[in-house]
């Protein structure tokens, strides 16, 4: 089977959805081939194929971009809008939170809002404080939206198709450092259902619950600890909200221990919600307190060594796993 990168996977998923449904269209800054097919090339080649109306390059106007996606979705289309970098959601939160997320509910179910908001981010690229944050918890805290992030190319293809199919808004978070990851191509029409986690690696001693780029760290650490006789189960949530509680709880009930791991800052992060839920529902099976690992509670710094120190450390992950299983 052919290998594809996450960039190719996303492009293929959008391409095939556009080919199947005239109502699917993209809008965002620089997305047309006139501007090079997107800053990260996700929409490369698509305006040549589908025209400038279906790959609409927009002005730098995030509120107008998301608002237009909301309106088009209300009219029955399936817009995929792009907010180039996740920090820029700060200038269009009203459209996402007050409108996209709530219009189904506030209309009594009459106006669902089937749209995908793609956005990119990630720590470790040297982009500094306003281009790197993982802000998924902001959206996970709002009823009426799905929050999705892939950790590999195959999931990216399947999650993107499922997100375009969904009849509600989806915040689709891409990590810049994952674009080059390769998977075996799952092929056309492949879908990964929203709200379903993957057990990325089975284990028996502790559950490591994570998503996005930190799945790679989790798998690397789990592989190393296997050699030391510590069996780590890695859960890749894939959909951060609403998340696959059944898979998470089943894993923790089996292992009796859990750590949440995300690149986003630790305080009030999604890991806190998951940890609290585990303590409420798995208490009788827990052998150790649930631990949380996240980014440092400061702005993402610029200098490489500072940025690297900011990110959740694999050494810390190892230490916390060992402490949790009593081998620290």
């Amino acid at each position, binding site marked *: 089977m052919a290998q594809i990168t996450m960039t190719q996977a996303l492009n293929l998923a959008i391409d095939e959805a556009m080919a199947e449904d*005239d109502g699917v269209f993209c809008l965002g800054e620089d997305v047309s081939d006139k501007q090079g097919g997107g800053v990260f090339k996700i929409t490369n080649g698509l305006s040549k194929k589908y025209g400038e109306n279906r790959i609409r390059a927009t002005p730098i106007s995030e509120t107008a971009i*998301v608002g237009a996606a909301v309106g088009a979705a209300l*009219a029955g289309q399936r817009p995929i809008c792009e907010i180039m970098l996740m920090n820029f959601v700060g200038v269009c939160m009203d459209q996402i939170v007050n409108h996209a997320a709530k219009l189904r509910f*506030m209309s*009594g179910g009459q106006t669902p809002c089937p749209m995908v908001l793609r956005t990119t981010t990630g720590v470790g690229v040297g982009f500094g404080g306003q281009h790197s944050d993982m802000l998924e918890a902001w959206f996970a805290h709002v009823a009426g939206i799905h929050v999705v992030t892939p950790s590999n190319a195959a999931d990216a293809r399947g999650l993107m198709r499922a997100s375009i199919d969904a009849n*509600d808004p989806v915040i689709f978070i891409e990590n810049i450092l994952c674009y080059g990851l390769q998977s075996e191509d799952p092929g056309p029409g492949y879908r990964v259902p929203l709200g379903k986690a993957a057990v990325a690696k089975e284990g028996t001693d502790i559950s490591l619950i994570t998503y996005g780029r930190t799945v790679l760290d989790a798998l690397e650490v789990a592989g190393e600890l296997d050699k030391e006789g510590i069996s780590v189960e890695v859960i890749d949530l894939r959909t951060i909200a*609403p998340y696959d509680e059944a898979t998470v709880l089943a894993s923790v009930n089996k292992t009796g221990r859990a750590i949440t791991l995300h690149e986003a800052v630790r305080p009030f992060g999604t890991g806190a919600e998951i940890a609290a839920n585990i303590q409420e529902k798995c208490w009788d099976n827990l052998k150790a307190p649930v631990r949380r690992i996240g980014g440092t509670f400061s702005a993402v710094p610029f200098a490489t060594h500072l940025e690297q120190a900011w990110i959740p450390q694999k050494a810390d992950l190892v230490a916390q796993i060992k402490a949790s299983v009593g081998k620290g």
Partner: protein
Amino acid sequence: MAEIERDKLLDVYTRTMKVNRTDEKFRALLMEGKVAVMYYCVRGQELVSAAAMAALDKDDYVVCTYRGQGEQTAKGIPLEKWWGECLGKETGTCKGKGGTMHITDPDTGIMVTTGVVGSGLPIANGLAMASQNNGDGKVTLVSFGDGAANIGGFHEAMNMAQLYKLPIIFLCQNNRYGEHTKFTDHTDSPDISSRAAGYGMKGLKVDGNNVNEVYPAMEEAVEHARSGKGPVLVEAMCYRMMGHFFGSDFSYMPPEHLEEMAKEDPLPKLRKVMLERQFTEEELDGIVAKIDAEIDAAVEHALAADLPSTDEIYKDVLEDVS
């Protein structure tokens, strides 16, 4: 300027009075204590809404604001559903989950009523974009006040609409107040419509209290947008003759301003035009009596209707895919 066709004029009059009588009824119910909900009075702006809705087709899209009663009833939302929603009943357009600030009725094209000043403009662009994409021939009209002209979304939406030549009408009802702040205290330029030029857009400024100005302008704007020539910004000068919302303090509105408003009241002016065009007092009064009877019946229906079931708080959050 060509005279408004007689049938059309009657249509505008009927819609205007529907808006006005609905507003009067709402204020009466609030005064009597029969209902206690947020209501944003439209007294003084009835004609602008009615003229705009009369210029649209039934299937055209409308996005309005919390002060949207005029657009909603003039576009034709069934009154029982409208009152049901305002009173928080299960018979309402949104099963009582939206309320006065979020009336939605896609059947009559009322796609969004937003409670956030200025947020409707970017969304309206999207509705118009969908029509441009699928060629359904609809136009979208978004209504907002002078206050909304100073929020960033206005600028972004205007530029984008003109860039794509979207079939959209931006209707600024300049009612001289942004919440409690007078127009001249929040904006130093003489009007909003002149901003259209900055986007390369067609702009019109009209007296919203004069049917012979506001209706033809709305028709012109709709024709322009529907024919593919792009968006139009229409600024209809009018007055908000009450406070920001029912019961709110409006001591900040000076007496001389209230007197000026009373002189410009669109309703006596419209009645004068109707009589000049040979409609009789009896005909006009008969229309109002019929509207009153419809409103009374709708209010009774809404008052008697059931409250939404409590489990509605869990429904319509996301699509139920189970």
